């Protein structure tokens, strides 16, 4: 497939453009998404001009109605792509996700469904000082909602491929964009393409320890991996790409090989996505593990504004390296017990 270098923002825009072009039943709604604004950072730029304000429609500041309207249009066969500007705002509209979108197929035994895509963004880790109510990383909640799917792309190509999948998937999807990654550049297939959900990417192969991450964790883990490689540690890096479903086959295959796992995410560590990963890996590979699965996540505090504090709340590259060391040092003990 032909590729072009572009930012994640451009890749998202292209995915939306191609979805709108392909299927009349796709439409977008959200605050400030239409031109001339074209979105608060420009993800939807140009789309209302191209497809009309009917299909790329600005909404009032009414998050519950935005998602409710998406759900309702979904019942009629539309594929609404609703934007909730920041993930911190989803609680306002969460009823429509939890009690409606995610349950519609089940409650009707398949007669109706709401195959909506909810695009949202996390600002955590940008160092912009947006603070406690505009910097959260809340994907763990959504992993706990049967009927929903959750994607968190970390590269421009993944953003395009996963968003396309999300829009045309017959189940509702929460699609989390990472503000700090929107400017990342990379090669992206120009034509429409999709990446199946539940298919992790093995970003880097190695034998000593598996580091599992997604979203903004990815560049950080890759930085840590360089440090580790410099120390002679051969690490395998996995980008999950979707958290619901999780590609456990890939994760387990890797950890079965390395016998050590570290999980890294920007979400709060306690009761975060890493807990499920660690628990499942341990259940499946208990006797093969050389050390307990290590988890690296945000500290148990709201997100502070000051850059000096924000750097402290989120996991650092050093913390990832340290966690990998921890799994290595456990080796001897684990082997003799």
């Amino acid at each position: 497939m032909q590729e072009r270098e572009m930012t994640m923002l451009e890749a998202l825009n292209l995915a939306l453009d191609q979805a709108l072009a392909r299927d009349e039943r796709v439409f977008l709604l959200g605050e400030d998404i239409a031109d001339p604004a074209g979105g608060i950072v420009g993800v939807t730029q140009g789309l209302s001009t191209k497809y009309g304000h009917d299909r790329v429609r600005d909404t009032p500041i009414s998050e519950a109605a935005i998602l409710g309207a998406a759900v309702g249009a979904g019942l009629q066969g539309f594929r609404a792509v609703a934007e909730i500007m920041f993930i911190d705002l989803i609680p306002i509209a969460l009823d429509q996700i939890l009690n409606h979108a995610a349950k519609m197929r089940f409650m009707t035994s398949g007669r109706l469904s709401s195959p909506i895509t909810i695009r949202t963004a996390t600002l955590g880790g940008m160092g912009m000082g947006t603070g406690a109510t505009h910097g959260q990383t809340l994907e763990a909640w959504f992993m706990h909602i049967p009927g929903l799917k959750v994607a968190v792309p970390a590269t421009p190509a993944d953003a395009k491929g996963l968003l396309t999948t999300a829009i045309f998937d017959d189940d509702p999807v929460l699609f989390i964009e990472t503000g700090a990654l929107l400017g990342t550049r990379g090669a992206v297939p120009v034509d429409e393409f999709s990446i199946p959900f539940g298919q992790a990417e093995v970003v880097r192969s190695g034998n000593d320890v598996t580091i599992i991450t997604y979203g903004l964790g990815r560049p950080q883990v890759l930085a840590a991996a360089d440090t580790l490689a410099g120390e002679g540690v051969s690490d395998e890096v996995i980008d999950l790409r979707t958290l619901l479903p999780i590609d456990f086959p890939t994760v387990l295959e890797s950890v079965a090989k390395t016998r050590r796992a570290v999980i890294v995410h920007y979400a709060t560590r306690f009761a975060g996505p890493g807990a499920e990963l660690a628990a499942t890996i341990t259940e499946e590979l208990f006797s093969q593990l050389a050390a307990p699965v290590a988890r690296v996540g945000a500290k148990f505090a709201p997100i502070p504004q000051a850059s000096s504090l924000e750097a402290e709340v989120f996991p650092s590259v050093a913390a990832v390296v340290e966690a990998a060391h921890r799994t290595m040092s456990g080796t001897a003990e684990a082997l003799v017990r």
Partner: protein
Amino acid sequence: MEMRPSSPPPAAVRRRMYELMTLMKAADDRMTKGITTGEFIAVYFPHRGQEATAAALGAALRPTDQLVTTYRGVHDHIGKGVPLVDLFAEILGKDIAPGRGKAGTMHIASPQAGVMLSTGIVGAGIPVAVGLALAAQLEKADRVVAVTFGDGATNTGAFHEAANMAAVWNLPLVLVCQNNLYGEKTPIGMTMKTKQIADRARAYEFPGVRVNGNDPDEAYATLSEAIERARAGEGPTLVECMTFRFRGHSIGDDMVYIPKEQLADAEAKDPIPTYRARLLSSGVCTEEELSSIEATALNTVEEAVKTVVDAPLPSPESLMAHVYANPDKAPV
């Protein structure tokens, strides 16, 4: 919306409304009896007393029009033409229910009949109805969407956001408030100062009108007008239908919070005998016709109950079906 004094609906419509009302009442009586006596176990929210609005709405909507209702929606469903067996089977959680035991009283849908959603979350159906109305508009279909909800629901943020959005987008939506003067166990005076819920429509710049929701003729005239406004592309209308709920919020509610005189007064204005008398006195129906309608209603209900009571529960193996269209790698 301007209220024009209107002549009564055609005789066929009036007969149909009476049929629907008797069927609604018979269904409500039977569910109430079944649960109260322990014949079956179910959650149920009686509508007894509120039949006239539902019958008028059902008669005024076309089969292709859509409806969104609530947990207290059996009368609305019957009005829109959902088969009784389907309703009872949903309420009792049987495998023959369209939802196959996964829906339940609060979550009944019947896309064939145009009922796209019932929700147990107060107010939450209104934004969903906005989405259905948007779909109709985008499709350039001449379909109208009606959404019914209670007085209490108009205090939810969902009502406000949805009403405003429907206004901005000029959607083919009719918002039908069944004002029964109570939200669960709390009288309306404790929860709003608003004198007429219909007036809330002004905040969004669309018409709101209050009608006697116990008078099927009046409700039909107004609802029809609102529906045809919507169909003509003139946007949403809020219709507040004044009514009363004769039974508790749900079966088991002792209704201590309703003053005896208020209930007695409402029962004295029971829409069903009142309408019966009118149909008789105005010569629309004969006594024989009316009796036959009533007998048919009772029979239909009894047969449906029998079918449903005899039907099996869903098998446990069906649990994981329909969580996803594509459950590949999903947790179990």
